[in-house]
């Protein structure tokens, strides 16, 4: 039957795996989310200069399996003088790969903001930088929270691939336990549960963010006295 004692005995390996998966995914997703935004903003601000390179980058990410990218970074890196720890290769791989997807998500968000809103801003003398940070990004964020959450979840699940380049993540350590104890079900089920918990956390975070970014209720900013000379 299900052997809980076994999990208790191997808890250190499982926790170490959990910790590695969490920090590598966290940093990888951070790179993906921020590099993606930079790529999308570059493409948006100067399509002539950056449109093509960014589009190529996006296609490259979509056309290459994450595992191949990880192999290139970890095993191919040294031949061009790039010596990365397996963990750092994992962060870099997840980050670069995710950035391509995030760039597309952001672009979709930016594109759905009517151009006229930016023309209105320009006519008021609002700089392109302020238009980006105060008008485009806040609206875009709202639109991209659901697809962004989804993408983060996918990245966390795909992060299991870093076990193949010898990172001691959840998946690799579960396999280690299996090999040591010849019990297959317990370690993998425990690990599945832990992945699911991380993902549930991200999903909840996404919902909370979605709610927070929705329009606040109308505020009653009219103070007594100020409206005394209201227009008749």
């Amino acid at each position, binding site marked *: 039957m299900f052997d809980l004692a076994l999990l208790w005995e191997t808890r250190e390996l499982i926790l170490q795996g959990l910790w590695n998966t969490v920090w590598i995914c966290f940093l990888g997703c951070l790179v993906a989310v921020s590099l993606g935004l930079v790529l999308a903003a570059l493409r948006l601000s100067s399509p002539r200069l950056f449109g093509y390179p960014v589009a190529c980058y996006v296609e490259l990410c979509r056309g290459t399996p994450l595992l191949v990218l990880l192999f290139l970074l970890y095993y191919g890196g040294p031949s061009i003088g790039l010596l990365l720890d397996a963990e750092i290769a994992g962060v870099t791989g997840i980050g670069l790969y995710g950035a391509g997807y995030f760039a597309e998500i952001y672009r979709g968000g930016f594109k759905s903001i009517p151009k*006229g*809103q930016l*023309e*209105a801003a320009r006519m008021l*003398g609002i*700089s392109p930088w302020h238009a980006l940070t105060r008008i485009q990004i806040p609206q875009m964020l709202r639109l991209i929270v659901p697809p962004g959450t989804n993408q983060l979840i996918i990245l966390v699940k795909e992060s299991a691939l870093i076990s193949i380049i010898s990172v001691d993540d959840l998946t690799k350590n579960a396999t280690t336990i299996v090999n040591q104890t010849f019990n297959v079900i317990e370690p993998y089920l425990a690990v599945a549960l832990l992945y699911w918990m991380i993902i549930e956390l991200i999903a909840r975070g996404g919902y909370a963010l979605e709610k927070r970014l929705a*329009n606040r209720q109308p505020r009653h*900013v009219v103070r007594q006295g100020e409206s005394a000379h209201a*227009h008749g």
Partner: protein
Amino acid sequence: MPMADAVTTPTTTPHQTHGEPIVEARGIGKSFGELEVLSDIDFRLEPSEVVCVIGPSGSGKSTLLRCLAFLEPYDHGSVYIDGQLLGYEERGGMRVRARESRVDAVRAPVGMVFQHFHLWPHRTALENVTEALRLVNGLSRRDAEAEGMAMLERVGLAERAGHFPESLSGGQKQRVAIARALAMQPRVMFFDEPTSALDPELVGEVLDVMKQLAHDGMTMAIVTHEMGFAAKVADRVVFMDQGRIIESGPPETLFRTPRSERLQQFLNTWRERHID
């Protein structure tokens, strides 16, 4: 010729440049690819003048306003705002595109109101008005809100200050958009069909605000299909067709004794539509 150094900052009072046009376009042309949308347009707006631009759909009215505001770069000719060339700079005898910041500085006296309002939906009515006051003029939140409330009062919407655009009617949205433009103290306002996207019963409230502005001496260029409004408020009406100005003059003259056949046709079509 406008003098090269006739520099007027947006803070100059309107009367200092009396007699000089605020907006002057000379021989402007604009094509979209093969399609010539504006050809050889001359256009002047004197201080406190209200000019309505009329014409059939596709005649280039919006493009004219957009070129005068440099939202669309013109290909030929020159546009001067307060005597300063808009959108280009002369450098070593060559004309080059001006930097964005230079364009912003030259068109600072221009306020624009669009057919579809283009309010920012994630900002309240008041925040729509105060945004530029804070970002561009550097006002504190307090000062910007006081100024913003004053503008909303001017368009009769003070009590809607905390509402988001989605909970405002079309007429209210357009009035907020007018307040937003007014907050930057423009010396001239461009309106591109400000009432065309509105339900008929909401047109009046927007036209009333515009009438009040005209009454207060605001210089305005208005693209409109509201002939009644044009007849009452305009000092001059400009009729465009196929990218050219066909006729221009006081509304009485233009509406009563149109000289060109195209204007006669245009007015007849309009009458048929509005009398049945």
